[in-house]
C-alpha cells in the first residue's frame, strides 16, 4: 500500500448504489486506496443502497483502518444510514469520520 499523501480527493457517490454499480465502486475505491489518496466519500446524493455496495464500503473502511486512518464520509444520506442500520452495521458506520 502506498504511503499517505496530504492531498484529499472528494468522491461523490451516485444516487443508486445497486449491484450494477458494485464493480465500478470497488474499482474506484481500490484505485484510491492503492494510490494512497485521502478520499472523502460524498454520500449526500445516495437514495438507494443495496448490500453489495455496503460490503464494498465496509471493505474499503477496513482497509483504511488497517492503515491507521479513518475513512471519511461526507453528509451521508438518510438512505445510506438506514441501510447500514437495517443491516446491523450501525457500529461499523460509526467508525467513519463524518462531516
Amino acid at each position, binding site marked *: 500500500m502506498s504511503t499517505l499523501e496530504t492531498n484529499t480527493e472528494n468522491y461523490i457517490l451516485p444516487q443508486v448504489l445497486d449491484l450494477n454499480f*458494485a*464493480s465500478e465502486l470497488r474499482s474506484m475505491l481500490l484505485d484510491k486506496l492503492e494510490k494512497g489518496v485521502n478520499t472523502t466519500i460524498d454520500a449526500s446524493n445516495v437514495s438507494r443502497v443495496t448490500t*453489495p455496495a455496503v460490503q464494498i464500503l465496509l471493505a*474499503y473502511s477496513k482497509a483504511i483502518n488497517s492503515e491507521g486512518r479513518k475513512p471519511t464520509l461526507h453528509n451521508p444520506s438518510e438512505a445510506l444510514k438506514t441501510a447500514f442500520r437495517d*443491516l446491523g452495521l450501525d457500529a461499523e458506520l460509526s467508525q467513519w469520520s463524518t462531516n
Partner: protein
Amino acid sequence: MSDSSFGANELDRFRATFFEECAELIADMESRLSCMLTETADSEELNAIFRAVHSIKAGAGAFGLKRLVTFSHTFEALLDWLRDGRIAQDERVATILVKAGDILAALVEAAQQGKEIAADFETEIANELHGLLEEASGGTSTHRAKAEPKSTSESVTPAKATVDYRISFSPHAELFRHANEPLLLIKELERFGTLHTFCDTSKLPSLAAMEPEDAYFSWTFELSTNRSKADIAEVFEFVDQDCILDISESAEEEAFGLFDDDEPKALNEPAPDSSPAVAPTIEHKPAAEPAQKAQSGAKSNANATIRVDLARIDRLVNMVGELVITQAMLAQQIIDQGKDQGQQAIQGHEDLAVLTRELQECVMAIRMQPVKSVFQRMPRLVREVAGKLNKQVNLVTHGEQTEVDKTVIEELADPLTHMIRNSIDHGIETPDVRIAAGKPAEGKIVLSAAHVGSNILIHISDDGAGINRERLLKKAIEKGIVTPNANLSDEEIDELIFAPGFSTAAAVTDVSGRGVGMDVVRRNIVGLGGRIQVQSTFGKGTRFTLIIPLTLAVLDGMIVASGSEKYILPLTSIIESFRPDKSQVREITGGGQVASIRGEYVRLVYLCKIFDVPGAVLEPWKGLVVLVETASGNKLGIVVDELIGQQQVVIKSLLDNFTPVPGISGATILGNGRVALILDIEQLAGMTERRRHATIDGRLSGSKPALLDDQASQPHSDVDDGALPRLAVGSR
C-alpha cells in the same frame, strides 16, 4: 420427491399447466392493472392482482425460474404494501404497476419459450419498484405506524402470544447474482415485530480480494413476534436455495446453528444451477419440486391441453350416454326383426343422426374459448409500441367473449399483433400531426369480434392517416410489383399492402417497416381457412376485416364431381354456381379462358386439368362453373361436372399421412367411405394447369399482362392471386 419417482414427463406436464395458468393469471392481472390507470383499485382488485403475481411467483419457484421469482417477489411486495395502505395509489404508482405487469408477462413468455432476454431487461422497472418500497419504508414512518402487519400469505394470526425467534441467515456467495437483496428480507422481518439484527462481517475479504457481486455477510436476527415460524420461513421462501437458514424459537436456542433432529427438515432440492452442497433447514417447502429438466421438452407440450368448463363436459358425457343407448336400441331392433323392423330402424337412425350431430357440437364446444385471451394481450402491445413511437393511442375492444376454436385463437395472436403494430406505426399519426389535421391528439384503435354464421368476424380499425393510394401505387411500381401501365382499382391498390416484401414506411423501424408483416398476416389468416380484407379512407383511417372459420376441425363444404373424382369446396368461398352459355366463355390472349358473368370476367380453372382426372366435362357450358372468391376478394370460376351436395365434413390433414399436394388443403372421408380431397382456393387461384393439358386446351400458363413475369411465377403471391383475369381484361 425424487427424480426417480417423479419423471420428466410429469414435470413437463406440470410445467405446461403452470404456463397455461400463467397466461390466464396475466390476462386477468393486465385487465385489472389497466383499470388502475383510470380509477383507484379497491381492496378486492388489489387482492386479485396480488394473488395472480403470488401464484406466478410460487409456480416459478417450483420450476427454478429464478429471474421470474425475483421480479415477481418485488412486484408482489409492492402490491402487498399497496393493499396495506403503506403505499398510496396514484398515477405514478399505477404506471409503474402496469409496466411491471408488462415485464412480468414478458418474463413468463421468455421462460415458456426458453428465450434469452437481456440481462437488464427488468432492471429499470425492478429499480422503480424497489424505489417505491424504499420510499415507503424509509421516510414514511407515519405510514408504517398506521400499517397493520400482514404477511404475504394473507394469514394474519389473531392475538397470538409473542414468541422470540432466533434466525440465522447465511447467504451463499451467489445470492446477489440471483437478484436477491437481504435489505428487503430484513424490512419484511421488521414488519413482524421487534427485530434486532446482528451482522457477521468476518468473511468479508480485503477490497482487493473481494468479488463485488458475491455475498459475504451473514446475519443473526432476534425477532419478537406473534407470527408463526412458517410465516417467518415464508419471508425467506425465495432465497432458500441461496442460503443456509435456521429459524428457532427461544426455547430451541441451544440448538441454534445446528440441525435439530426433532425439527422437520423439508429440504429443498437444489435448483439446476445452484450448489447442492448445503441443505437449508426451513420448514416451508414449495408446492412442487424444482424441475431439473423442466426447460427441456415442455415447449412442444405447452399447448397440448385445454381447460374446459365443467358444465360442457357434463353435457358431453350425457350425450355420449344417449348415443350408446340409441345404438343399443338399434342393435336390439335388428336382432328382434319384427315385421315393422324397417320403420323402426329408420326412426332409430334418425334419432342417432340427431344425437350424433349434438354430440359433435358438444365436442366442438369443448374446444371453444373466448377471444379475450388474445385481445387481452393487445393493450400491452399498444402501450409498448405507442411509447416507442411517441404516439398516443387508445385501444378499445368489443366482443371479447366471442368464442372460437382454441387452435384458431392461438393462430390469431400473431396476425393481430402484426396488424395492431402496423396500425400504430403506419396508421396513427403523431399527436402534432393529428392536431394539425383537426383530430384529437390521441388516436383510436378498435378491435372487435363477432360471430357471423359459422365464421368469426374480427375488425381492426383505426382513425389514422389511411392508405395513401398514390404513394402506395408509386412504391409498388418502383418495386416492380405492378407494371407502370397497370390499371388498378382503389381496392386493388389497397390490396398491394399484402404483397410480399412491400412496405411504404419511410424508414425501417424496430416496430415495423420491413415489409414482412402484412403478407405474413394474410398467409396466416388464409392458413386458418379465412380471409382478410382492407378498407381505407385517406386521412380518415383504415379497417381490416378478418373472416375466419370458427373451427379447423370441421368444414361446411360443397361436394363437387369432376370425372370420377369428388372434391370438397369450402362453402364460405362459394358465391354461386352457374352453367354459362357458350358465348360467355372466351379465350384470352396469352392462353386461358374467362367466363363473362354480369359484365365481369372471371378466369376459369378446370379441376380435371389440374389434377389429371380423365373423363371429365371439358366444356363449361356442358358442366358447371362454381364461382368462388379468394382471400383478396378476386373471383375464380372452377369448372366441374356437377354439384353433388352440401355437407359438413371432418377435416383430415394430408400432411400427417402424405406429402403436401398443391391445390389441396386437406382430405375428408365421405359417407361411402371414400376419401375426398378438400380444395385450397388460394392455391388454385395461383396455379397453372398442367402443361400437357395447356397445350391441348388453353395454355393458361402463359404471361400475365399487367404483372411482371417474376411476380406472376409466384403461386402464393398475394398480389397476383386471382388478379390475372381482371387485370388482363382491363388492359385490353
